[in-house]
């Protein structure tokens, strides 16, 4: 129950679609989505595979709660070996696509091989086939979605697609569904592009069965009440989205600025959630039009924004004058503070382009920030940039590069390499702010010490969504810890990582955890699924998933040497704010973390740990 118990296997070499039974033994141990799909990937592929080779597989996976009426239960994830990182990639997306996939009768879709020509997958209630996508190749995610709906005369088909960025192999290309929701990080869109797979289009109306209907309705109603009564999920996220964080993190002195040269941005307010609400003097309208919810979500943190019609980015370009997916905090930071740009509409435009052509605004903005530093020290000049004055704060450079990167043209093709490859190419690897090849999100680990450990040990490279200790260190959820201290952070990071891995395997959104603990989540899973699901079993699943991902990365060639941070964060102290004079104290946290994980001093899970977790 809750699981559809069915996997769709798509052999792109042969052009065939085959149903097979879900391995229920694995489902009981890995739950679904992130955990279960990782298990399939580990069993079916060699971790040393080239991410862009046909031998790499790409799995779209839902969780057992996906498609039910539990709040936020519309999530799906894309699991593969990441094009950006060469590590395990698991990118999670909301919107409505995940629900559609589950209601079409599938827990997951496994793509293997490479199609000889561009195709898209069409699925309708258990009936799947590949369709020629020759005409769609070269189209944006927005056009692809519209044209597939029109071709099948069905506006309710849900589409996940790659744009030109994914076709051109931008290393951090994303898969975009429902116009502005994305499996954004680690380059899952580049993997999809390498398979000549343009889109997945699904219509599903089969329904999802739960194990104990009465208990499920009671548990999900109780969960919704907790979300509604909590100030963060009931008021803060609907009103300001994640953008409520911009001023908080800046005041705390943990807002990485200009490629992490600073920790506070003088233009932070102009790109904050508060600024998105302010009425413009020119036309009396605000950047924010409304909030927006993914399937079944009772939080509705999504932002829908519109750019002032006279702004240089949209004059004579009506397609960008419409309301569309607005800035979330991480994107606003990367497009703004990381590049020194404080023009809200320009950041919104760059974000639109990321959605339109399918690439990750975090890695894009951070890479532009790194390129700006390369330019300012003279490592690159207008000769390399094609005439672009790539100085920090140059708003025109930001928006032009967004368009060039989306199309893989000019210097945009180099920005599409990501900061690690770009900085290596121009002789300054130390200027790339990344872990395992993936750019940092919006928290400076000199000002939030635990995040340094969370980044260094994140299985998919630098990421805030693998262990969000910001919740505790800054926001006091579930309890306040000191962001400037390293003591106790090993345990804190592990607890966040394990709980998040369980949430990501269930089919719900991690933002629920501002209000929900596993005590709120377990009864919903327990009522939906057969078997006993308690907070303890969920934590065990989370820890098992974490170790499974770790073993994949070890097999792919990563070692404890990769559990580190750029020299800038370990040697150059913060210059302002509460963290002034501090570097990240990773060396004080990492040994304790390895020990708590039951790993050797080289970061390898011991036999005892593997046995305890039945791995």
């Amino acid at each position, binding site marked *: 129950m809750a699981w559809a118990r069915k996997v769709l296997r798509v052999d792109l070499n042969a052009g065939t679609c085959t149903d097979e039974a879900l391995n229920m033994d694995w489902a009981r141990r890995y739950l679904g989505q992130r955990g279960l799909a990782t298990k399939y990937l580990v069993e079916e592929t060699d971790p040393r595979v080239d991410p862009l080779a046909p031998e790499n597989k790409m799995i779209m996976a839902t969780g057992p709660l996906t498609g039910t009426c539990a709040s936020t239960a519309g999530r799906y994830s894309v699991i593969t070996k990441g094009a950006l990182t060469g590590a395990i990639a698991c990118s999670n997306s909301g919107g409505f696509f995940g629900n559609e996939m589950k209601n079409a009768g599938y827990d997951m879709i496994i793509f293997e091989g490479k199609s000889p020509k561009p195709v898209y997958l069409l699925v309708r209630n258990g009936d799947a086939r590949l369709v020629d996508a020759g005409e769609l190749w070269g189209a944006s995610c927005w056009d692809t979605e519209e044209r597939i709906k029109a071709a099948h005369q069905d506006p309710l088909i849900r589409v996940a697609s790659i744009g030109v960025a994914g076709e051109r192999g931008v290393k951090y290309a994303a898969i975009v569904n429902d116009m502005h929701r994305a499996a954004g990080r680690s380059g899952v869109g580049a993997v999809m592009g390498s398979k000549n797979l343009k889109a997945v289009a699904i219509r599903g109306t089969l329904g999802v069965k739960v194990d104990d209907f009465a208990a499920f309705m009671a548990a999900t109603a109780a969960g919704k009440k907790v979300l509604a009564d909590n100030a963060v999920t009931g008021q803060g996220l609907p*009103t*300001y989205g994640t953008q409520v964080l911009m001023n908080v993190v800046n005041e705390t002195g943990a807002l990485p600025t200009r490629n992490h040269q600073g920790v506070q941005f003088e233009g932070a*307010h102009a790109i904050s959630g508060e600024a998105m609400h302010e009425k413009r003097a020119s036309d009396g309208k605000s950047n924010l039009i409304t909030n927006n919810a993914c399937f079944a979500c009772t939080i509705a943190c999504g932002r829908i924004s519109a750019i002032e019609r006279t702004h240089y980015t949209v004059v004579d370009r009506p397609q960008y004058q419409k309301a569309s997916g607005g800035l979330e905090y991480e994107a606003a930071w990367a497009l703004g503070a990381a590049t020194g740009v404080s023009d809200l509409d320009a950041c919104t435009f760059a974000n639109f382009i990321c959605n339109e052509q399918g690439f990750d605004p975090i890695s894009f903005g951070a890479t532009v920030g790194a390129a700006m530093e390369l330019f300012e020290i003279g490592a690159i000049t207008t000769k390399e940039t094609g005439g672009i004055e790539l100085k920090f704060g140059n708003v025109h450079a930001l928006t032009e590069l967004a368009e060039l990167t989306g199309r893989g043209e000019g210097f945009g093709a180099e920005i599409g390499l990501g900061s690690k490859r770009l900085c290596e190419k121009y002789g300054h690897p130390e200027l790339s702010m990344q872990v395992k090849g993936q750019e940092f999100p919006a928290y400076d680990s000199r000002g939030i010490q635990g995040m340094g450990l969370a980044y260094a040990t994140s299985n998919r490279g630098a990421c805030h969504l693998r262990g969000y200790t910001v919740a505790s260190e800054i*926001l006091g*959820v579930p309890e306040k810890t000191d962001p400037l201290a390293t003591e106790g952070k090993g345990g804190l990071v592990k607890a966040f990582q394990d709980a998040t891995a369980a949430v990501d395997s269930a089919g719900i959104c991690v933002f629920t955890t501002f209000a929900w603990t596993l005590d709120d989540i377990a009864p919903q899973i327990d009522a939906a699924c057969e078997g006993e699901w308690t907070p303890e079993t969920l934590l065990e699943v989370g820890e098992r998933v974490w170790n499974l991902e770790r073993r994949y990365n070890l097999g792919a060639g990563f070692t404890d040497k990769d559990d580190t941070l750029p020299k800038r964060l370990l040697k150059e102290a913060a210059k302002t704010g*509460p963290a002034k004079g501090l570097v990240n104290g990773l060396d004080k946290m990492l040994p304790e973390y390895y020990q708590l994980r039951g790993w050797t001093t080289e970061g390898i899970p011991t036999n005892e740990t593997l046995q305890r977790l039945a791995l």
Partner: protein
Amino acid sequence: MKVTIKLFALLGEYLPAGAADNAAEIEVADGATPADVIRRLALPRESCHLVLINGLYRPPGERDDRPLQPGDVLAIWPPIAGGRD
């Protein structure tokens, strides 16, 4: 003495006239505490959840007795940004 007050999210409504970017410089009595400023601006006490002085967290129990210093920045958010008692 002068201090800077920053009121974010819905607390922005309580900023004095002339404030910009959610911030204003105000004159307070020497030795004024965060609690004094919260009273003076008529901020609902239960809405003052996350309180930072110069970016450093000030727990609820320490808002009454520790005076502000000239030039301090007092930043306050309502519970929507987290911050537990």
